[in-house]
């Protein structure tokens, strides 16, 4: 017997009798014998729970996790503090073992949680409308690009080279298959080349995707970019770090048309890259072009407040090939984590996390570069990441740090060969002064 299969042999017999069959094999009569498996798939014998636990713990022990290492690695996935409330709520199986709220009367918990998620995403981004989540920050960029081409009926998207390399890769995969031209705006001294932006934005440009703070942690000149883009009636698609919005100007305040981003920082563990959530929020005028689920507030027959999936005529289950997107399952439980995170941290907490990241990163940057052995690659205002260059090779730095239990920053040469070697460090609110000094001591001691 298997613990997840309640049917006893007697139950199976009872069912077969009801069906008037002799053997369970008979229910598979429609499957032609030529394609029936003659022997069982070659898998290991079934394991007990204790054995499974041992195997998984053994695999875990061969990973160096952020509880055992000090991590200065960011570049799109971040080691932020996750309040215990988040783990509790996402662990409640009324949330985790339900599905898409197709039946609103028995899904009010999920629906209201999504409504509150949408509200809080709008609150932090300063936008009018948010959907219920997308797969990740990269797919949010691809969906935003499609929205822009649908709205403007233009076929060109510009994306800055300072947008996360993973996002640009995913974007190019999808835009390529939609037949949308995707042009890259080159990086100049660590930020988007504004002259190139001015030169390339035209009446053919549906939208421009910028990231702020950008991949190197630097703040971009969004004010100038916004004027250039809107002057040509293109859309400004701004990818943002949600934690930074505790302090820094929002996409809404910059005049963005669509705000997107990776929501992992909001209460989701790094989890080797997923599951995360992509958020996407926009101005009211773009609402009906949005991909994915949206929850709206309404009343029941007795006038009581309730929540339903709304504007569903955009979606694949109604519109099929004419839908705004093919997305069905999204990242609902991760969006719930984001909501609980934002509810727990609140207005003050988000500001304080952003402030601590900012101060600690600037402290780290100042002491790492104090002796002159290392320097910042460029001098721009930055949030919590900064690129550092010096004589020792990236590999040697990484090895020296790892020997002392530190996961160093991201060597960006792989994605930006033109910039030469150098390391992007990330300092979140979780890092301590002591850890930062350790990092500095090891780097300083290298030949």
């Amino acid at each position, binding site marked *: 017997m298997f613990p997840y299969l309640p049917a006893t042999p007697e139950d199976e017999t009872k069912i077969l009798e009801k069906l008037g069959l002799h053997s369970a094999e008979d229910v598979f009569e429609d499957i032609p014998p030529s394609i029936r498996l003659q022997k069982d798939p070659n898998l290991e014998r079934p394991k007990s729970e204790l054995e499974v636990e041992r195997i998984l713990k053994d695999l875990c022990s061969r*990973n160096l996790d952020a509880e055992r290492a000090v991590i200065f690695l960011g570049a799109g996935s971040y080691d932020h503090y996750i309040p215990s409330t988040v*783990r*509790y709520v996402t662990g409640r199986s009324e949330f985790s073992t339900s599905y898409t709220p197709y039946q609103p009367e028995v899904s009010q918990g999920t629906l209201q949680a999504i409504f509150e998620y949408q509200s809080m995403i709008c609150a932090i981004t300063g936008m009018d409308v948010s959907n219920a989540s997308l797969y990740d920050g990269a797919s949010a960029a691809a969906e935003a690009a499609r929205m822009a081409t649908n709205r403007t009926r233009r076929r060109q998207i510009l994306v800055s080279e300072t947008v996360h390399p993973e996002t640009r890769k995913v974007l190019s995969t999808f835009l390529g298959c939609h037949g949308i031209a995707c042009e890259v705006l080159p990086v100049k001294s660590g930020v988007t080349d504004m002259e190139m932006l001015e030169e390339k934005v035209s009446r053919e440009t549906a939208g421009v995707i910028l990231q702020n703070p950008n991949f190197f942690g630097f*703040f971009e000149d969004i004010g100038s970019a916004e004027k250039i883009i809107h002057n040509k009636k293109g859309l400004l698609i701004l990818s943002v770090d949600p934690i930074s919005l505790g302090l820094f100007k929002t996409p809404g305040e910059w005049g963005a048309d669509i705000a997107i981003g990776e929501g992992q920082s909001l209460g989701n563990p790094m989890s080797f890259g*997923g599951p995360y959530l992509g958020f996407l929020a926009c101005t009211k005028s773009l609402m009906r072009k949005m991909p994915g689920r949206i929850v709206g507030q309404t009343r029941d027959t007795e006038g009581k407040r309730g929540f339903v999936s709304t504007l569903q005529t955009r979606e694949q289950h109604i*519109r099929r090939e004419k839908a705004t997107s093919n997305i069905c399952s999204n990242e609902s439980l991760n969006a719930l984590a984001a909501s*609980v995170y934002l509810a727990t941290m609140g207005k003050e907490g988000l500001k304080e996390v952003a402030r601590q990241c900012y101060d600690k990163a600037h402290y780290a940057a100042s002491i790492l570069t104090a002796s002159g052995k290392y320097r910042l690659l460029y001098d721009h205002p930055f949030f919590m990441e900064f690129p550092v260059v010096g004589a020792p090779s990236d590999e040697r730095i990484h090895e020296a740090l790892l020997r002392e239990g530190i996961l160093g920053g991201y060597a960006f040469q792989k994605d930006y060969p033109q910039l030469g070697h150098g390391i992007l460090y990330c300092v979140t609110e979780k890092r301590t002064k002591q850890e930062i000094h350790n990092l500095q001591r090891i780097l300083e001691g290298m030949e």
Partner: protein
Amino acid sequence: MKEYNKLILECSRPGRTAYRLPESDVPEFPLPDGLLREREPELPEVSEVDVIRHYTNLSRKNYAVDIGMYPLGSCTMKYNPRINEEAARMSGFSNIHPLQPAETVQGALELMAGTEKMLCELTGMSAFTLQPAAGAQGEITGLMMIRAYHRHRGDEKRRRIIIPDSAHGTNPASASMAGMEVVEVKSDEEGGMDLDALQEVLNDEVAGLMLTNPNTLGLFDKNIVKIADMVHKTGGLLYYDGANANAILGITRPGDMGFDIVHLNLHKTFSTPHGGGGPGSGAVVHNGKGYVLEENRPLSIGKVKSWYGNFGVVVRAYCYILSMGAEGLKAASRIAVLNANYMKEMLKDYYKLPYDRTCMHEFVLGGLKNNPYGITAKQIAKRLMDYGLHPPTTYFPLIVHEALMVEPTETESVESMEEYVQALIRIAQEAVADPDVVKTAPHTTVVKQLDEVQAARNPVVKW
């Protein structure tokens, strides 16, 4: 018990807090001019007690697999084993960074390689990717691979994708997003693909055929080998939508049926929780004929998702396969199919059964048999809630009028299925004896029928 009806923002009082961070141990640095947000975000100010009570109260307004049977057809709402959850939360999996050096994540990589190997074995395929985040993303990935396959052979004109009229909405949506033209083919009287209709649309502009088998009627297409042959002969490829793979693991394999590319929904077949709508995972496997989705391979279609996909979901699926083994997976398929047939047999005297044959893991009813007052599938669904049960999928597939699509899964006991059937039979009786009680349902839920028209006309989508 007291009814709870508050938004978290409505619990807010200035000065309350639900968090505390260690005091910063570094000096403050000046903030840059002109870059700071001007308006404070409208986020709640609540205590930790408020957060926990709020979400615990919300959770009580949800139906879930852990509460009872959730036979949402096509969604495979099976039980989600607890050990899988514990494993995914282990720090060695949840606290690792996707850009860590390979030597520091050998356990994670071994787990992914192991999952790959087992999924290949179960599907009869040779290579795959764990990147896609959900079924629909798996679909578009597979379709892009099909396009790339033809394009690489210099066959630019193959842009058409054949999809049966019983398909999920994501199939045509994915095809059109992949830049392909959808050709819909009607189903035959037995619910399978109409071979003559297929032959008519097969030509040198067809890139491939997208099929769910068993299909969305819960029926296995007996002609699958022939269909595969017909498509391959005209140069097309076959895509297997794994939404219904829960009926066939260990019994037959998409690879043996003749499919070239397959996606599997790890959140359906491999027991990972549905999370109120995600995260899922739509692993794509293929038989080596198309393209490998891997970086730095010249023929790759490129990345479809950041990093490695929904790793946390893969951990759960890996645990599930280890726990079940071939024997368990085969038993799960057998019992899933027996259970569906059992319910179908008990219901067919009361509900229309448009395709009366042995079904696989699910079946589709077409409303009430005796229905003098015109009770709809929606009303039946709402009335089921009064019996404390989650309704089946309604109005899908589109080819069945008043469809109620029931998928019990293998994790339901005979007793829970009998209870569910009894409720449906009682509703069938009420539909004749007391139709109003059905038409005005639900009566016992936290909210009554909701005004969806108003919600769409004047959208209120945030506080």
